[in-house]
């Protein structure tokens, strides 16, 4: 469909749209609540948005290859509950447990990838299954309610902020984690040519295979990275607010929506890491805006749905107008 030549152009436009949406929404926030212009509050905004941005950036890998990862919310829940149970409040256990969490994440991603690549189960079903069993496992392990405790140094990753920092006022540790992870994920997509391979696989797997791209391996890598990103998001989220067995509820659809709002195309073919970043920040700015407006909670869902349709409708309309 979209030939290779037109891709850079399409991507550039998508970046601009996502960024534009975010700036508009943030401007509205500032209009209602001017102190959101203070660097300290902007940093706090980023701290809270960090888990969703990281999730979306991981999800983007899978979307580029033409799939979905519905299991990321369950991975977040699993990460938070497992971390609390394994560390049980012991600060010395923090780093070994984090290593173990990433190992489990890689395992989950590998499982998803293998099921999709070799058992030929569509990713939406495969990761739906994983979402169910992983949530069930997290609940069974913890007995259905939060157990154990997260030590201070674990929680700091998502909670701690340096105060009186030059330029920005306060600097949350989560923002540093966010920047580091994004740099890594950007490099993965755009630095080493993985992104091009993933796009090719998402666009037309048969053609990609004929062109010598290892389709299965590209797919599996995407699921592993998505799961690892979800573990990171889980660590930040657990740090921000503590142990909970519903920490990840709803995040899978939010992360997919974020990528799409940012201009990534579902079923593959188009997208950059910036789609995920601006999309997720836009979505989070929207949540904040709706909070500030004080609308009834339920209608916030409606507006979110409307924005989703309008954003994607506009992208679809634009790409049709271009052809």
């Amino acid at each position, binding site marked *: 469909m979209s030939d290779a030549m037109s891709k850079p152009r399409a991507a550039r436009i998508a970046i601009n749209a996502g960024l534009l949406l975010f700036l508009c929404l943030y401007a509205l926030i500032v209009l209602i609540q001017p102190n959101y212009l203070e660097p300290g509050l902007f940093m706090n905004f980023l701290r809270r948005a960090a888990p969703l941005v990281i999730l979306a950036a991981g999800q983007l890998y899978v979307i580029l*290859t*033409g*799939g*979905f990862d519905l299991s990321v919310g369950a991975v977040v829940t699993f990460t938070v509950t497992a971390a609390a149970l394994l560390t049980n409040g012991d600060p010395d256990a923090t780093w070994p447990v984090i290593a173990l969490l990433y190992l489990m994440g890689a395992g989950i991603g590998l499982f998803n990838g293998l*099921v*999709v690549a*070799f*058992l*030929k*189960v*569509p*990713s*939406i*079903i*495969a990761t*739906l*299954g*994983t*979402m*169910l*069993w*992983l*949530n*069930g*496992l997290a*609940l*069974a392990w913890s007995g*259905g309610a939060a157990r154990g405790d997260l030590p201070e140094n674990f929680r700091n990753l998502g909670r701690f902020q340096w105060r009186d920092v030059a330029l920005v006022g306060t600097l949350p540790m989560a923002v540093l984690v966010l920047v580091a992870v994004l740099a890594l994920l950007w490099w993965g997509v755009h630095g080493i040519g993985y992104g091009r391979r993933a796009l090719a696989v*998402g666009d037309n*797997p*048969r053609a990609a*295979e004929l062109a010598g791209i290892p*389709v299965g391996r590209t*797919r599996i890598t995407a699921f592993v990275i998505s799961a690892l990103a979800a573990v990171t998001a889980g660590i930040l989220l657990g740090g921000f607010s503590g142990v909970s067995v519903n920490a990840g509820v709803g995040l899978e*659809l939010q992360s*997919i*929506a974020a990528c*799409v709002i940012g201009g990534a*195309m*579902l*079923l*593959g073919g188009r997208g950059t890491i910036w789609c995920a970043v601006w999309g997720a920040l836009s979505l989070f700015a929207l949540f904040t805006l709706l909070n500030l407006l004080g609308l*009834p*909670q*339920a*209608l*916030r*869902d*409606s*507006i*979110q*749905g*409307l924005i*989703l*349709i309008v954003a*994607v*409708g506009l992208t*679809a*309309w634009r790409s*049709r107008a271009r052809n």
Partner: protein
Amino acid sequence: MMADRTLPRLSVAMVLLLISVTIFAVTAIATGETAQFSLQGVTGLLQRMVALGLVAIGQTFVILVASIDLSVAAVISGTAVLASWLMGGDPAMIVPAVALCLGFALAVGLVNGALVAFAGINPLIATLGTGLILQGVLSASYGSLGGAVAPVFQQLAYGSLFGIPWSVLALFGLALTMGGLLNRSVLGARIFAVGGNPDGARLAGIRTGRVILTAHVICSLFAGLAGLYLAARVQSGTPWLGRDGIYDLESIAVTVIGGTLLAGGKGGVAGTLAGVFLFASLDASFNMLGIDAFLKQVLRGFVIIAAVAVHAVRGRGHVA
């Protein structure tokens, strides 16, 4: 051509049916619950199929045209709430209430179909969006839309003919009708064509947009029927009825388990119904075995993957 499509589909359905019956029978015997083989036990098992079965028949139609519908849960809640509110316990209001509810479902189907077929929005996002919009409005209006369905209307869910519940008869009647529609009508042929090879269908002069729109309308209407059935079953619909029942994801899962391809163009109602039967048998068996809720969820996750893998693994080419 016809036989080609029917044979493998029937086999998936038959295999699922046999597996489900075996699971149910073995568990009942092993746990000594032989009373479950009585007419009452078996109709109870079949009644577990009704709500999900209705939604899944509709979902099969949209998946056959390579679309998907995530808004069914909200449509179910919407019709159930509307039915209870409009009827307000008054039997005279049954007919207008049912008509309005189906009108509402029809409207949602039209919007979904238009967004997917004519605005070119990815169906996952389009129906997620309409679902969110509906869910939000429903939750916000809860309280002002209270009420209960008319007692006579509850016969739909609790009444029976020769010991077989009306609702079960209706489910199988509708399944037969829709199966026939798919296999023996022009519309059915077009649905398979649009899902299997949209470009070819377009070249053959089929207005693909209209076919996709029709499939979405059918899907929403069936979700509406499920909502009406649930309203009769629970007397007074809540805005969370559909969401709590996870009818969106479960209806997709059973459809795919039943052998309908997510990419469209292949599958059918028989397989979907067999998938629903598998879920109902598992439900009943888990109960008899006293498996705790969390473990149930783990098992269900693996069953979904395994059930799809069994027939997907033979397929050549790639899936995403």
